[in-house]
Structure formats: structure tokens, C-alpha cells
């Protein structure tokens, strides 16, 4: 925490001196922090403030296969749960907010790309948020809980025992909300860093960068000097810098986008984190040296029976490391989003007990508090992911020049190698 605070502190100081004047920065930062929960609150209220709804809209509010089609009223808790789980999921359209009384959705549709006996491309507006059956070249598709199923003309879905539709699912390559966010982030990072690179190309490596590059340069140096160098080692860190920088800025920007009220939740999607962890896993395995494999299959410096016992544990450890990476990022961001939305829901849940003003005030304060923590978590998770990735890579590429007989003595962690011992339970 201190490290991070110190780092951000000096970053802001630097920015103060160079780019903005101090008062302006102070004011805009305060305004930003105050505005975050306000904007989020404004969106959520559109969805959940009315307790009476029409039965047509009630049909859409199904949670985990529990059907409420018959009931005109859906309990408030169910509605809030539904709203949160809907937010955590990927979607085929960008929905900023929706009015449940009129059934209007404010947002824009995204292209749907299906592979089902040939490529089918159409706009997700055809689904009308799951209410309509989309007809493409004589095939009928229906959107149900964020997934596309093949149906007949009427859009009938058959359910199995677990209330999951048993209809056929076409291969879905759609540009979904997450894909669009990823593409946007990629473009943003590309533009920012090409301008940084251009600046250095033009003025030479020792020149003072200008504009926004002054914010980026210390971050790049931070990743290099605090994350890559100490963990991977002076000799080999350069080869892994592109990956570490990419993963750091990708996760950070996506986490920060998740804090905006646009409803983006990319790093809280397990498919994305699985993919990122897979990159780390593959890079680690393919850059590993002989010693790393020796430590996994035939641990040096221990008796033979122990070597046999250790081998399966080490092989398991190979997989638990990236697994812990993906679970950590996914769970942190999911939990953060859930908590923020849950705190916003206080407005509606505690309306009777605290009066409207009281519940809004409580919710606003708590949401503000959690949002500020989430800002820290957004950075911390990017830092931790990059840090642990470089740690795992470092374990695989470092030359162990010291005596192996002492390499498993955890009590005396005087050397960097001990911190990276594969026997630390990494989950």
C-alpha cells in the first residue's frame, strides 16, 4: 500500500509541476471522485426504483431458471440480484440504462457474428433485448440470458432439468460488449504508447517527454525497475518487458474502465482472465531453462524418495500458479463490482427504514468510500498480476548459482530466490 501510495504521490507531484496547475488538478480530481457514485446512482435508479412493473417486463426478470412469468410483481431483492448478475455478464449490446416502465433501453446494438452453416452477420437490434426472434437466412435465433440459441419461428426454448435451454447453440464470434471494450482499450494503449515511442525517437532517450507522455514514462519505468528487474534478473528482463508492460496497462485500463458507469466488466470476466493467465503460463513454460525442469521433475538436494514425492506436487504447482492468477483478478473485480452495486441498492432496500434522503446519503457515502478503494484495487490488481507473472517467469529463467542444499530452507529468506521458491502455496 505504502509503495503504491508513495508512487502515486510522486506521480501526482510530478504531474503537478509539469502539466497542470495544482489548483486545477485538485479541483478536477475532487469533482471526479464526487461524481463517480452520483453517476452510477443515476443509472441504477432507472432500473430499480419502481417497485410495480408490468407483467410483460416481469417475464424478462428471471433469475437462475426461476420463472416469474405468471407473477406481476417481482421481489425487490430478486430484481437487484438480477440487475447485478446482468451487469457482471457479457452482453450483445451496449445498454447504458433502461426504463422498465416503458421497456425502453438506452444504448446501442453491436454486431452479432455467428458461425452456423456459414457465416451469419447481423445487428443485435434484431433480438430486441431477447424479446424478439431474429431471422437470418431462414434460421431463427433467440437471445436468452446473454446466450444465443437456435429456435423455431416462434422462438420456443426447451429447458432441461437444470433450467438451462437445451436448444442448439451456434458458434458465437460476436463483437460483444467485452470485445468492444477490449478493442477500445487496445486502440487507446496503442495510440498512447506509439506517441510515447515517437517522442523518444524524435528527441533521444534522455530528453524530457512532453504532454501525457510525462504520465506514462514513470509508469513504464516503474514496471521496469520495480517489477521486472528485481524479479526476472538483470540479464534477462528485457525480453519479457513487452509482455509485462502490455499486461500491466491492459489490466489497469480495463479495471479503470470498469469503474466508470458505462457498465464495462472485462477483467471481471473469467474468460478474459483465463486467457491472460494462459499467456503467462505459456511464456513461463517456453522460456524455462534446464534447471527449472530439474526442480520440477527431479528436485536436487533431497533424498530419492523425497524426489519422487515432490515431483507430482511440483507439477501441480505449475498449474496452480496461473490458476491463482486468474482467480485473483476475476474474483477481485467481480467482488468490487458486486459490492459497489450492492451499496447502491441500499437506496432501494432501506428506503422505508431510513427515508429516501437517509438511504441516498448512506448509499452515497458508502459507495464513495468503496469507489476510492476500488481505484486502489484497480492499480493493485494490475500490479499484482504483473508482479506475479514476472516472479513466475523469473523462477523459470533465473540461473541458480548458489548451493542447492540450502535452497529449501524457508526460515532464512536472505536471498531473492527464497521468495520465489515453488513450494510457497500459491493460490
Amino acid at each position, binding site marked *: 500500500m*505504502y*509503495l503504491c501510495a508513495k508512487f502515486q504521490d510522486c506521480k501526482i507531484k510530478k504531474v503537478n509541476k509539469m502539466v497542470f496547475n495544482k489548483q486545477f488538478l485538485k479541483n478536477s480530481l475532487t469533482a471526479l471522485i464526487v461524481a463517480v457514485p452520483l453517476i452510477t446512482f443515476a443509472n441504477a435508479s432507472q432500473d430499480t426504483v419502481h417497485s410495480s412493473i408490468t407483467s410483460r417486463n416481469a417475464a424478462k426478470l428471471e433469475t437462475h431458471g426461476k420463472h416469474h412469468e405468471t407473477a406481476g410483481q417481482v421481489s425487490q431483492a430478486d430484481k437487484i440480484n438480477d440487475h447485478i448478475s446482468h451487469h457482471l455478464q457479457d452482453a450483445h449490446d451496449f445498454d447504458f440504462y433502461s426504463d422498465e416502465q416503458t421497456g425502453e433501453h438506452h444504448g446501442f446494438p453491436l454486431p452479432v457474428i455467428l458461425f452456423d452453416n456459414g457465416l451469419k452477420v447481423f445487428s443485435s437490434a434484431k433480438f430486441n433485448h431477447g424479446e424478439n426472434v431474429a431471422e437470418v437466412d431462414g434460421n431463427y435465433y433467440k437471445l436468452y440470458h446473454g446466450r444465443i440459441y437456435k429456435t423455431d419461428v416462434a422462438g420456443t426454448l426447451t429447458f432441461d432439468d437444470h433450467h438451462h435451454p437445451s436448444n442448439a447453440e451456434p458458434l458465437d464470434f460476436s463483437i460483444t460488449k467485452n470485445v468492444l471494450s477490449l478493442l477500445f482499450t487496445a486502440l487507446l494503449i496503442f495510440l498512447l504508447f506509439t506517441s510515447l515511442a515517437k517522442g523518444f525517437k524524435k528527441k533521444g532517450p534522455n530528453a524530457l517527454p512532453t504532454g501525457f507522455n510525462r504520465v506514462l514514462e514513470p509508469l513504464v519505468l516503474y514496471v521496469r525497475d520495480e517489477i521486472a528487474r528485481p524479479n526476472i534478473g538483470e540479464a534477462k528482463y528485457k525480453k519479457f518487458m513487452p509482455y509485462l508492460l502490455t499486461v500491466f496497462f491492459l489490466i489497469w485500463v480495463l479495471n479503470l474502465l470498469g469503474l466508470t458507469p458505462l457498465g464495462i466488466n472485462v477483467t471481471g470476466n473469467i474468460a478474459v482472465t483465463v486467457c491472460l493467465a494462459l499467456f503467462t503460463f505459456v511464456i513461463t513454460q517456453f522460456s524455462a531453462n534446464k534447471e527449472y525442469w530439474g526442480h520440477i521433475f527431479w528436485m536436487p538436494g533431497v533424498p530419492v524418495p523425497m524426489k519422487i514425492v515432490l515431483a507430482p506436487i511440483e507439477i501441480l504447482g505449475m498449474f496452480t500458479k496461473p490458476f491463482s492468477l486468474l*482467480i*485473483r483478478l476475476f*474474483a477481485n473485480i467481480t*467482488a468490487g463490482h458486486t459490492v459497489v452495486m450492492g451499496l447502491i441498492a441500499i437506496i432501494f432496500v432501506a428506503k422505508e427504514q431510513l427515508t429516501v434522503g437517509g438511504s441516498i446519503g448512506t448509499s452515497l457515502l458508502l459507495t464513495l468510500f468503496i469507489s476510492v478503494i476500488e481505484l486502489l484495487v484497480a492499480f493493485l490488481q494490475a500490479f*499484482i498480476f504483473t*508482479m*506475479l507473472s514476472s516472479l513466475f517467469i523469473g523462477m523459470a529463467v533465473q540461473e541458480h548459482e548458489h548451493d542447492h542444499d540450502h535452497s529449501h530452507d524457508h526460515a532464512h529468506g536472505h536471498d531473492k530466490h527464497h*521468495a520465489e521458491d515453488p513450494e510457497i502455496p500459491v493460490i
Partner: protein
Amino acid sequence: MEIPNLVGAGLIVIGAGVGLGKIGGSAMDAIARQPEAAGKIQTAMIIIGALLEGLAFGALILGKN
């Protein structure tokens, strides 16, 4: 008797809280003893904290279903 999920979540959070407290406390002790090593201790603290957090979150997610 069925124990509700919330109880399990509470137990996980208690465990994680105790663990994080121990990590933070030890780090404070260590920094007080050797202020010049504060940076290294911070990094190690954050890493161990993240590992613990990963464990707790893993348990929370597995316990959710």
C-alpha cells in the same frame, strides 16, 4: 442441518482477516526494526497479501455454488 452459505463466507472472511492482520502486523514490526528495508518489505507484504486474497476469493467463489 444445512448451514447457510453466508456462514461459510463469514468464516472465510474471518480467516482472511486474521491472516492479513498478521501479515500487516509483521510487516510493521519489520519496518520498525529496519526502516531502510521498507521498500522490500512492502513488496513482499503485498505479494503475500495477494496470495492470501487469492485463496480467500477462490474459497468464496467455490463456496458460492
